[in-house]
């Protein structure tokens, strides 16, 4: 049974639907990557999953439990965690306070989880007393992912984690995402850098017009000439 199964999701922000039948399924400990052109409904799919917009049709099952239209604060308790693309830190709070806020729902001791985040992202340890808003874009992204890891999620949702980052930081963030996944956390991410992201994906989903266009393993999608021509900008040979 898949860890997450979104079936035929329709929904939007009140006006016309943005999602017109999206289906996503990934197993535990897998990396799923959603790619597609602008306006395809990639970020909207994550938001629909995380209860940030109303799903009008379709069902979302996480870990055997139906969670369609469940509120975000409840989904956190189910083992889902979400990193928005923008405004994903508390800017006036210190790095460590940002991590503490990630653990807000926990009543037990979480000191070891803060240390674990510093192990994943060593630059944060030196900056733990600094306000998150003063960090560079890459380090802010590390704080954002670290905050989301504090609940020990089973599935981490990342909305364009490398958007606006320099190539050096982009590679570093991808490396860290792989490390987090190796530690047993499932990943579902939306990415603009489709080639790099599909290269590390167990499952890939190409969306267009709010619907699935292609679904397969990351390698299958990268090898598919049709996908390459329409969505990856250039032939598969350039990969």
């Amino acid at each position, binding site marked *: 049974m898949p860890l997450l199964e979104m079936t035929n999701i329709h929904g939007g922000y009140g006006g016309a639907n943005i999602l017109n039948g999206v289906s996503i399924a990934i197993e535990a400990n897998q990396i799923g990557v959603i790619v597609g052109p602008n306006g395809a409904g990639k970020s909207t799919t994550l938001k629909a999953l*995380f209860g940030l917009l109303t799903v009008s049709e379709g069902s979302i099952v996480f870990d055997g439990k139906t969670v369609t239209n469940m509120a975000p604060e409840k989904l956190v308790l189910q083992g889902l965690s979400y990193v*928005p693309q923008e405004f994903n*830190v*508390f800017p006036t*709070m210190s790095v460590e306070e940002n991590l503490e*806020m990630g653990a807000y729902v926990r009543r037990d001791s979480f000191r070891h989880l803060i240390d674990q985040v510093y192990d994943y992202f060593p630059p944060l340890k030196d900056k733990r007393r600094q306000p998150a808003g003063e960090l560079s874009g890459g380090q802010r992204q590390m704080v954002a992912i670290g905050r989301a890891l504090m609940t020990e999620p089973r599935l981490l949702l990342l909305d364009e984690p490398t958007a606006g980052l320099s190539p050096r930081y982009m590679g570093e963030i991808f490396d860290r995402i792989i490390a987090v996944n190796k530690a047993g956390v499932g990943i579902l991410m939306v990415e603009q850098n489709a080639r790099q992201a599909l290269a590390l994906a167990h499952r890939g989903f190409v969306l267009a017009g709010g619907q699935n266009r292609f679904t397969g393993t990351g390698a299958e999608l990268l090898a598919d000439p049709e996908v390459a021509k329409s969505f990856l900008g250039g032939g598969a040979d350039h990969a």
Partner: protein
Amino acid sequence: MPEAGLLAILPMNELVFFLNKVVIAGLIIGSVYALGAVGVTLIFGILRFAHFPHGDMMTAGAFVALVLLWMFPGVGAAVGLPTAFVLMPIAMAVTALLAVGLDRMFYRPMRKSGVKPVVMVMTSIGVMLMMQGLLRLFAGTGTRQLYADTDDKDIYRIPLGGRDLVITEPQLMLFATTIVAVVALHMFLTRSRMGKAMRAVSDNPDLARVSGISIDHVVRTTWLIAGALAAAGGTLLALDVTLKPDLSYNIILPIFAAAIVGGVGQPYGAIAGGLLVGFSETLAVFNWSVLLRPMRPYLPEFIEIPAKLAFVPTEYKIVVPFFILIAVLIWRPTGLFKGRVNN
């Protein structure tokens, strides 16, 4: 001795007069503004609207203290403090619950239906008018004393060579309460789980929500703190002067000026802003001729020292916060502590 010589040529009488009229008076009114402005700035930081009834909430808190005074008149004499001050914690608790009740009845339904910010402001003005009406309906328009007949208003005189430095009992209680409130608020916001959650919601409400922070709990805590501090400020101001239903009219503008000067959404800024506005008012209405007169022998003949030389006449004190507001909005629109005006 050189020290004695220096003291001898200093116009001590006039300096003590200055301390009494400007420094102590400024600290007192500044503390009242600070207690109000912290609430206004917390409410804005969390709920993003201007809470105009805050002055009336302070007045209501003082009236709660008055009712408690009627109910338990002997309490103060038993411990040697003014009865209203002894009962103030209860008045703070009652006003805190009143604040939560106002939110439940008026602001929360608006929030839940997702109204535009301007509608929240209109609601806020409506609640202000309603509270002013209710206070007059139940309390009349007369002036009352929050000091019971059984309480003595102690006045402390510190002799400083001639004129005395004068501090009254309610003024000391006001300083003490403000300091305790500021320290407690600081500890709460930086050490406690709920205090940090409040800062998180103020920083980024959407991210706070996806972190699992209950916005409803944070909102309720905000009203409890704002209501309790408002009651303390109102009660202590009424103890220092008198209790009138229109108390709020004279303090709501300086309180908003203090919150904006300090940077909206910044609790420490609100405290600094409150004191700044308080000192500005006392400095502006101070008669500077008092300090100039002793310097008569050292000034050239043609300079005449007028009988009264103040920046603004006392009756126009209320314009001072206006000027400060205008100056801040021109030169530093985000306030001294860089508040959240942009988002």
